[in-house]
């Protein structure tokens, strides 16, 4: 994973090849997965990847723990849905506003706590997650509280002249929409972390005083990373509502933040591709463990603790170790 290999241009080309491979996988998946239950799972998977890479951007790179992902997720879901239902806004306008609102809330929250150690930010974001949940639960005139909002319509049908209409009531199209969006976000984040922004964020993660001595404005960049992370969660929320068709506060309880954290940790934080593996594994695997009931969550918890203790690089590290074992002569990328 050395970023100091002499040929940066070759690496840049290689990254573009990987983007292309990912796009091909996204395009091909619905051809093999035709069952609507599994197509829904694929969409959930795409949303979880979006949530996880968003969290990893702030946690793995800037070294700040955002335990408010569940709240930003909920903020995006509820605000976009309510903007459509109550104000009659078009879906995509509501989508943009919901995403921006979540991002702004994240930046604002980080400004409250940036003056202090990372722990404060983690706790402030956790508190924020509890508050948003309580507001969703208690502001019944707006959110209908625990009863929830029902019958949320899919995003409006897109029609380009001369082409067949694209209706998002069709799970295949909704998958292309969400997975395509997630892929675009992934590419943008990947380009950012492989730019001086990545260096800046990791410098803050490693030593903030030292970073300031190089001209890095820690609070500003933490707020930026928080905003990006929260906006990604907000966007995921905007897609979640029309996918499920129903919004209840319990979908955005604090435990959701922990699930997203588990995906990042198990996949391997500090690499963008790790959380993708983590999200896929922890979304699809439980489908096979449904019979275990509550044991499922015990496994989530155990996997987080064990990964931190024994495999802090997560799946990505395990993969590297394995490759090293199998091909000891092989060149390290």
């Amino acid at each position: 994973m050395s970023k100091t290999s002499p040929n940066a241009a070759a690496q840049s080309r290689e990254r573009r090849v990987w983007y292309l491979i990912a796009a091909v996988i996204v395009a091909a998946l619905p051809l093999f997965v035709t069952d609507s239950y599994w197509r829904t799972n694929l969409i959930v998977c795409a949303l979880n990847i979006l949530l996880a890479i968003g969290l990893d951007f702030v946690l793995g790179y800037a070294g700040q723990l955002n335990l408010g992902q569940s709240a930003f997720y909920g903020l995006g879901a509820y605000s976009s849905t309510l903007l459509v239902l109550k104000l009659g806004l078009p879906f995509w306008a509501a989508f943009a506003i919901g995403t921006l609102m979540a991002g702004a809330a994240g930046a604002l929250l980080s400004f409250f706590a940036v003056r202090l150690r990372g722990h404060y930010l983690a706790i402030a974001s956790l508190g924020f997650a509890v508050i948003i949940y309580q507001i969703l639960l208690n502001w019944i005139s707006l959110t209908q509280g625990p009863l929830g909002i029902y019958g949320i319509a899919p995003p409006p049908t897109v029609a380009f002249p001369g082409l067949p209409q694209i209706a998002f009531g069709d799970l295949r199209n909704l998958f292309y929409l969400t997975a395509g969006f997630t892929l675009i976000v992934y590419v943008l984040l990947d380009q950012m972390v492989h730019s001086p922004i990545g260096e800046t964020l990791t410098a803050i993660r490693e030593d903030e005083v030292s970073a300031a001595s190089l001209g890095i404005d820690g609070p500003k960049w933490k707020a930026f990373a928080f905003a990006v992370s929260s906006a990604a969660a907000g966007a995921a929320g905007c897609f979640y509502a029309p996918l499920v068709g129903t919004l209840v506060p319990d979908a955005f309880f604090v435990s959701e933040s922990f699930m997203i954290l588990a995906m990042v940790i198990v996949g391997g934080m500090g690499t963008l591709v790790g959380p993708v593996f983590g999200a896929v594994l922890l979304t699809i695997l439980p489908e096979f463990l449904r019979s275990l009931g509550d044991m499922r969550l015990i496994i989530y918890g155990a996997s987080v603790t064990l990964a931190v203790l024994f495999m802090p690089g997560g799946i990505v590290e395990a993969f590297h170790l394995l490759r090293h074992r199998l091909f000891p002569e092989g060149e390290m990328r």
Partner: protein
Amino acid sequence: MSSIVLQQAINGIVVGSLYVLVALGLTLIYGVLVQINFAHADIVTLGAFAAYGVTHLLSGNYLAGIAAALGLGAALGWLINAGIFVPLRERGSELLPLIATIGVSIMLQNAMLALLGPIPYAFDTPYSNQVIRLGTLFLTVQNVLIILVSGVSIALLYGFMKFTFLGKALRAVSQDRETAGLMGINPGHLIMLTFVIASALAGLSGAMLGPVLVLTPFAGTSVIVKAFAIVIIGGFGNVEGTILAGLLVGLIESYTTQFLDPGLIDIVVFALLLLTLAVRPTGLIAERREENV
């Protein structure tokens, strides 16, 4: 009206003094290790269930229940330190231990859920139904017991920190590892001691909170959020500030329940937390702790 205000003040102090016990544990650990044990509140919940179980098994011997909770808390503290914080210490990360204990918390909560189910337990101690009347005010003996036990525990802890050699050594570790080494004390042992004391306090407060709280496997989550708020409002590592903030949050809770809506408790507490972060980031009682650069 004024009797309601007074009555709620008593209720607030009862709950608040227990929050103080929980938050003091967090703050003690933060003081020596600059780390957070996220599973701290689950020790509270486990303490509550242990007390519940033993009290019922021994047909109403609540004191034995309290002792069991205390012991279980101490044992869990030892285990969490030895299993998580000691192995992670050399990695020197600020967040890894926090994340690992989040994992522990998820495990403990869901293990309790699998064993005990989500339905709240009615934990009545022999003292829950004995009422003392003071004019228009009334107190259960349980409430008196809570105030007494937490008051004594807080006083003992305070005295221990201020006046005993070990307590001074503990404070020395929180200032500077090397000084503690010079005092001839192994910092590792001191940290272990801190964990055991802090977690025993958490177990104890669980035993006392059990009859007051809605006792489910998730009871700890609402407690930990308040405990975190208390610790930040009071100033991390600051014992006096934590006591003050704990009582304050207890009062806010009981007055919000009485005059506003119980659903707003977390919102009000969190608003206070944000206000503190914005106005006095080091807590109510400012503590100057300069980073050695």
